Structure formats: C-alpha cells, structure tokens
C-alpha cells in the first residue's frame, strides 16, 4: 500500500515521528488503521488545498472578469482584494440553510456532497510532482488504472447534479439537471477518446507513467502533428464537462435562473461552487500532465520536486486563465447545438485523430521523417 504512494508513506513517517515523541512506534497500529488514518489525513489535506485554491480562483476569476470588462474587480478587502473571497466564504457559511418546501430533504442535502466528493477523489490519482531520487511520481495513489479511475469517478458528479436538480422541487432546477445529464454524458465520449491518444503513446494508464515519459522536454504535444488537435478536442470537451462557458447550460443564468443550484444557499451552494473550480483544476491538471509535460520545463527535471510542482501549478493556472478568458468572451450555445457539437464534430474528429496517431506510431513516422529531413 505505502510503497505505491510517496505522500502516504510521508504521512506515515510523520505519524511515526510524532509517536516517537511519546516513545512509541507506528507499528503499534495495525496496518488497516494505518492506511485509513493516512488516507484520512491525505484527504483532509487535499480538501484543504482545493478549498484554498478555490479561494484564489474565485478572486482570479473576478479580477480577470473585471479587467476584461473595463472595471477593476474586487479591490477593497485585503491587498488587491485578495481577502474578498474569504469574506464571501464567511458570508456563505453564516447564511441560512434553506430547504424548499416539497424538496426531497435527503437527496437535497446529499447531492452537493456527492458532487464535490466525486471531483476531489479524482485528485488522488493526479501526480503533483516528480521525485528524482526515488524515480517516482509524487501522488497520493499511484494506481495502474489512473486515468480510468479519474474518468470513472468524475462521472459520479453527474448523479449528484441530477439529484440536486430533481430534489429541489423547482422546474428550472430540473431543466438544469436534465441538461447536465445530456451534456456531460455525451461529452465524456470525445473526452475519453482524446485521452486515449496520450495513453496510447505513453502505453500506460497511470498518470505517473505519463509524467515519467515526458521528462526532459519530451512533451507529448510535440510527439506527432496530431497532438495539438487532440489537445484542442480535449480542452473543448473538458470545458463542457466542467460546465464552463460556452457550455454552462446546466446553470445558464439567463435562461434557467441558476440551473440546478437555484434553490441552494449557504454552505451547500458553496459546495457546488467549489466543485466547478475543482473540476476546472482537474481538467487543467490532466491537460498539463498528458500534453504539456507535467512539471517538466525543458530539462529542469533534475531539479527539486518543489520546482516541478511549481511548474505544474503554473501550467494549470495558465489553462484556468484561458478558461476564464473564454467564459468572459463567448456567448452560450443552445442545448441542441451542444449535442450536435459533441456528437457530430468532436467525436468524429477524436476518432479520426485516434486513428491517425495509431498509424503514425505504428509506422514510426517520426523517425522516418526525421531521417528524411536530416538527409536533405
């Protein structure tokens, strides 16, 4: 268990050290207890990290939106308005938790947790850095089926959203939920297909293996001419999957009031909010790891894992900036156009690209072209 995960073993070492202060040893705890304890601590840390990231993202979004609309954005609370989101969070926490009459109370209360849990759990399989000494990716769980687990576990989010929409006893919410179901389920096809391409090249479903494969500037995006198109498909499908504009139909505020979370308030609302940003981060992280060399920055691979983490974070932030930029520019599509785009455009292109990459790799065209190029 622990040999698969640098983070978990680090947590175990920390517990060991703490127990050492009272003259004890980690071995007094049975192995299942150790695993659960370390897992809980890791999950708590992950949750905290995401909550902190969301604070920054919301601030970023509002500042970026402000500047793109010729205004300033939040600038009062704290330096550059950085603490505005903290203040807003406190406001949300203090708000009354309203459950509408006629709502299914259990589902209504359970839905936001399910939605958030699905996305946060997926981060367990994301390598955040690379340990050069051990030659291992730094992640909570280096699972062989990494990307498969992520796509599977993120899909549970849809169930949560449908639950929220259905349990709210609000017709607008129901519309939002139905749109979400139709949209996310259809866009998982191009998303999955475009993820299949890097998996094909790396030859491993684990994201840790993808990180290792790209060390030293050997990014997947340069591997063959199809990769940029694949990344584009991935990005568009990813946008649709995390309900960002121009695919924000489930919560289309000009049509459905607030979509599936119309009836939510306070903490439960903030869960949906966090989920959106968390899934943006997830998509950005997967994009950075599978196409842009994870934490690698052209030969910095020999350096410390902290720099690698910083580089990865930078790539994620750039991707999130682009997402925000898109959101504050484009109008929203209509639901049938979203479906047309998914099924008639993105899916065929993704299939074609998958085929192209397969043929390219099969005949090793990279090397052949290189030979041709160097000979002339």
């Amino acid at each position, binding site marked *: 268990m622990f040999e698969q995960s640098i983070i978990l073993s680090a947590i175990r070492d920390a517990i060991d050290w703490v127990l050492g202060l009272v003259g004890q040893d980690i071995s007094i705890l049975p192995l299942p207890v150790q695993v659960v304890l370390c897992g809980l601590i890791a999950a708590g840390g992950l949750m905290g990290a995401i909550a902190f990231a969301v604070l920054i993202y919301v601030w970023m979004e509002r500042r970026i939106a402000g*500047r793109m609309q010729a*205004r*300033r954005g939040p600038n009062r609370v704290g330096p550059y308005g950085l603490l505005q989101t903290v203040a807003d969070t406190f406001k949300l926490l203090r708000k009354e938790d309203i459950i509408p009459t006629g709502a299914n109370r259990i589902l209504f209360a359970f839905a936001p947790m399910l939605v958030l849990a699905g996305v946060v759990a997926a981060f367990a399989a994301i390598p955040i850095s690379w340990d050069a000494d051990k030659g291992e990716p730094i992640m909570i769980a280096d699972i062989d089926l990494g990307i498969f687990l992520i796509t599977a576990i993120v899909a549970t989010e849809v169930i949560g959203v449908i639950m929220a929409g259905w349990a709210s006893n609000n017709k607008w919410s129901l519309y939002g939920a139905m749109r979400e179901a139709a949209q996310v389920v259809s866009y998982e096809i191009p998303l999955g297909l475009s993820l299949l391409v890097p998996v094909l090249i790396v030859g491993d479903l684990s994201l840790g293996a993808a990180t290792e494969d790209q060390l030293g500037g050997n990014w997947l995006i340069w591997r063959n001419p199809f990769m940029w198109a694949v990344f584009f498909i991935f990005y568009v499908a990813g946008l649709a999957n995390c309900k960002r504009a121009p695919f924000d139909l489930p919560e289309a505020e000009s049509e459905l009031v607030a979509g599936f979370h119309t009836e939510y308030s306070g903490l439960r609302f903030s869960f949906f909010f966090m989920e959106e940003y968390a899934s943006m981060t997830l998509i950005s992280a997967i994009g950075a790891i599978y196409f842009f060399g994870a934490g690698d920055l052209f030969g910095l691979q020999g350096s410390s894992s902290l720099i690698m983490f910083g580089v990865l974070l930078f790539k994620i932030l750039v991707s999130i900036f682009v997402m925000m*930029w*898109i959101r504050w*520019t*484009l109008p929203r599509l209509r639901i049938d156009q979203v479906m047309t785009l998914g099924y*008639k*455009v993105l899916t065929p292109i993704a299939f074609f690209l998958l085929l192209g990459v397969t043929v390219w790799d099969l005949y090793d065209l990279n090397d052949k072209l290189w030979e041709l190029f160097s000979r002339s």
Partner: protein
Amino acid sequence: MVETFKDFGFAVKTAIKGMGITLKTFFEKPVTLQYPEERPEVDSRYRGIHFLEQEKCISCKVCALACPVDCIHIESELPEKGLYDWDRFDIDYGLCMFCELCCFPCPTNCIHMGKEFDFSRFSRMDLVRNMLTWEGVSPAQKKEVDGIAAEKAAKKAAAAEAKKKAAQDEPKDTQDEKKDGE
C-alpha cells in the same frame, strides 16, 4: 456534415477574434471610479439636491406650485413689507424627482439645483430636508429691523420724554397762567 465542420471552424475563428478584444480590454485601464474616495466631478448644470438663496427668496411659493409631486413645503409670515418671518421651507427628497421644474418659474431666481447627489438616509423622515439657513427673520434684516425698532423706540422714548417734559412744562405754564390769572 461538411457544413457542421465548417461552422465549427468559423466558430473557433470568430471566438479567437472576440477573445482578442477581451484581451485588449484586459490590458486597458479600467474606466470605473473608486467611488467613495474618487468622486465624479459633476457639471455646473447638474441636478442634485437643491440649495436656496434665502436672502433673495420672497416666499411667493411659485416653486411649490410648479412642483409636479408637491414635495416643497413653504410656510412663512409677512408681517411687514420686505420682511419675512420664516417658519418652514422643506423639500421632501422621498418625493422629489429632480425635474428642475421648480427652478424655472422662480421670479427672483433664488432656488437652484446643487451638485450634491448622495442623499441616502436610514429613515424616510430624514429625507425631508430643511432648506432654511435661518429661521425667523434673516440676520441681516434682523439688524436692520432691530435698528429700526431701536430708532423707533428711541423716537418713541424721545417723544415720550418730550411729552413728559411738555406735560411737566405745561402744568407749570397753566399754573403760571393760573397764577397769572389768579
């Protein structure tokens, strides 16, 4: 099928163009003001809270009549010509719609729209603003009036004195006359 792909291509192209515009705005200076610190400079014609030149006002109530919402309340007494004893000149800003119709008919041009625009209050009663800088008779006039009164009093006193004197003198005379007559 081909149409759909073409459309998708167009969409991406135009989206990138639009994103260019937003990026351009991103690096432009924001046009907003930091309101409570930076206040907008309003023009001299700005129609804000009124101000009243009370010295010029002749309490003719034309403004109150011209007001479409009847938000001006004037009460004054006119004990003597050119002398106004003010009780009240209130404007209810809960009603006022800043149409400037009160300012046009004023014969002495004494009511104006000011530059003040921030007039939010916690209670509706606080929205009724007293336009008077003084109540009763004006300080300038007061001096004048006091002067006149003092003069009058002095005159009266003088007259009374004179009368008294005369009265004092008169009996003397009569006594004298009586004396003379006796």
